[in-house]
């Protein structure tokens, strides 16, 4: 009798981990550089397609092709930053956010249609030999692939957390978040920090995309869906806290699952629940669950 509820909860947590990972990527970019890259979902999609190609063209297991996927996305990130976003660095914050929002839209349009040309509109996914395996714990079925995704997400976040807290570069990034002008005066190369943060965010999106391609499916129009999820979780968790953002992802995942289970016919309203939650948080508690109250 606890079975379906627990199962529901677990699936919510598992998908929430991916939401959290995607959101942390976006948060890395937005938190540090104040670029609101709404093409984040499309970059996630590119990560998924990269692992798809590695699997179908070269036969490489998706969990092993992470390095190449990350490299691919790092290159894309560097190119995008140098060509597009670096011009926005010196703008005042409001203009910076708005312009990057617009650039992100143009970019998402381009990437969406490129994906359409390259991979057609069919749903794609990576199905390995072990894709259907699951372990059953206390009556709850845990698919191996999604468990691994949760594990990888946690590892990435831990690594990121340690990087930001324990390394000099991480400290430089945090200093830039607090006050980029002061950081510049202190001798921190802002452009390097921005580039690094942007690329980190893009790489995280790529990792999340790979996990989505293995555990779920990818198709050219998924970008907006994932960008929205990342945005929602970023706002829900609050800027400035990686673990907080991740928890926000779990919260969204569980809320969606619970709502689709409890509301009759609720499966179709799954997305709406998240969006309504988002709007409520925006209006009532804009700093999110764990963010610092900045306004």
């Amino acid at each position, binding site marked *: 009798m606890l079975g379906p509820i627990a199962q529901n909860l677990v699936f919510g947590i598992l998908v929430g981990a991916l939401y959290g990972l995607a959101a942390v990527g976006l948060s890395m970019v937005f938190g540090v550089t104040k670029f609101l890259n709404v093409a984040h979902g499309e970059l996630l999609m590119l990560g998924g397609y990269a692992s798809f190609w590695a699997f179908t063209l070269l036969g490489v297991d998706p969990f092993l092709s992470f390095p190449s996927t990350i490299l691919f996305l790092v290159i894309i990130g560097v190119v995008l930053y140098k060509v597009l976003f670096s011009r926005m660095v010196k703008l005042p914050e409001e203009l910076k956010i708005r312009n990057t929002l617009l650039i992100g839209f143009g970019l998402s349009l381009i990437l969406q249609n490129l994906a359409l040309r390259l991979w057609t509109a069919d749903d794609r996914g990576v199905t390995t030999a072990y894709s259907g395996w699951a372990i059953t714990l206390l009556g709850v079925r845990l698919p191996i692939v999604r468990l691994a995704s949760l594990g990888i997400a946690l590892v990435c976040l831990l690594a990121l957390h340690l990087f930001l807290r324990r390394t000099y570069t991480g400290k430089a990034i945090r200093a830039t978040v607090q006050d980029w002008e002061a950081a510049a005066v202190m001798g921190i190369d802002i452009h390097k920090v921005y580039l690094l943060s942007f690329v980190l965010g893009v790489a995280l999106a790529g990792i999340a995309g790979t996990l989505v391609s293995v555990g779920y499916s990818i198709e050219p129009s998924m970008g907006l869906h994932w960008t*929205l999820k990342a945005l929602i979780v970023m706002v829900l968790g609050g800027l400035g806290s990686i673990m907080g953002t991740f928890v926000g992802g779990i919260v969204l995942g569980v809320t969606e699952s619970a709502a689709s289970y409890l509301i009759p016919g609720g499966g179709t309203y799954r997305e709406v629940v998240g969006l309504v939650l988002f709007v409520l948080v925006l209006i009532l508690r804009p700093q999110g669950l764990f963010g610092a109250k900045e306004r």
Partner: protein
Amino acid sequence: MLLAFLALLPVVLKNDSIINLAILVLLYVMLSSSWNILGGYTGQTNLGHAAFFGLGSLATRLLWISGWPLALSLLAGGFVAVVLALLIGFPAFRLRGVYFAIGTLALGQILFVTVGNVLPQISALPAKYLASYELLPRYYLFLGLAVLIVGVASVLVHSRLGLGMMAVREEEDAAESLGISALRHKLLALCASAFLAGLTGGAFAFYHVGYYPQFPFAPVWTFDAMMMAYIGGTGTIEGPIIGALFYVVVKELLALKLVEFHLIIFGILFILVVLFLPGGFVEAWKRVRKALARQLKSFQSRPSP
């Protein structure tokens, strides 16, 4: 002049596909101009514009099919959109800048998904309407509404309210300090934008024989309208018109070659405009004219040999 040309177009060219193309251009002109009132002149990026378009189309379609006269159905569509605008305006305008943008994006998505769930079946014209379907009156409806919407936008922005809206766009806090109520102007712009988008939706509902009620709520309508306004030039009256025309022309030119390639080109152009030419084609044209005028002057002031 241009209006006469447009008015006589279907009489001269009895080509249905050209008339349909013209209707598409007019539709985008209307959608883009209505977005421009809030987005271009008041500086509030509304990413949920499709909600007004969709709601207007939904209301008009339901009323018209159930027997209401067309004019009333259209007006009802507009008013329903305004009701939504007022409902979401008060909470939404508590959000500044980018938070308003993503908040409206979320609201638009909520409506999109909800309508798709509540009304999943296609809306088809009943036999009696289908039999009496004529393209020409629909063309003239679109033309008339487009003229109306551009006209309303023009009158609005040249009025004192328009100045207030632009003041809010430039520097909201400074405007407030001068006694311009930012909230009032934003709400007004939102309602005007919503009403006109609702009318556009109504025309859309009148024009299409069959479509899914969810379709006009799709975010693509907002993004297309927004990009046309930017490429043409936000904050101008001609901008959305130029953008709409450009979009449809490019799409048709490329339609035979690579499908959807026009969107990639559009995306690139959009990015170029945002990066280098914030005033769009209108600004580009102004710059060219200025450069030419300067050249002419330097020719004239050169001493004769």
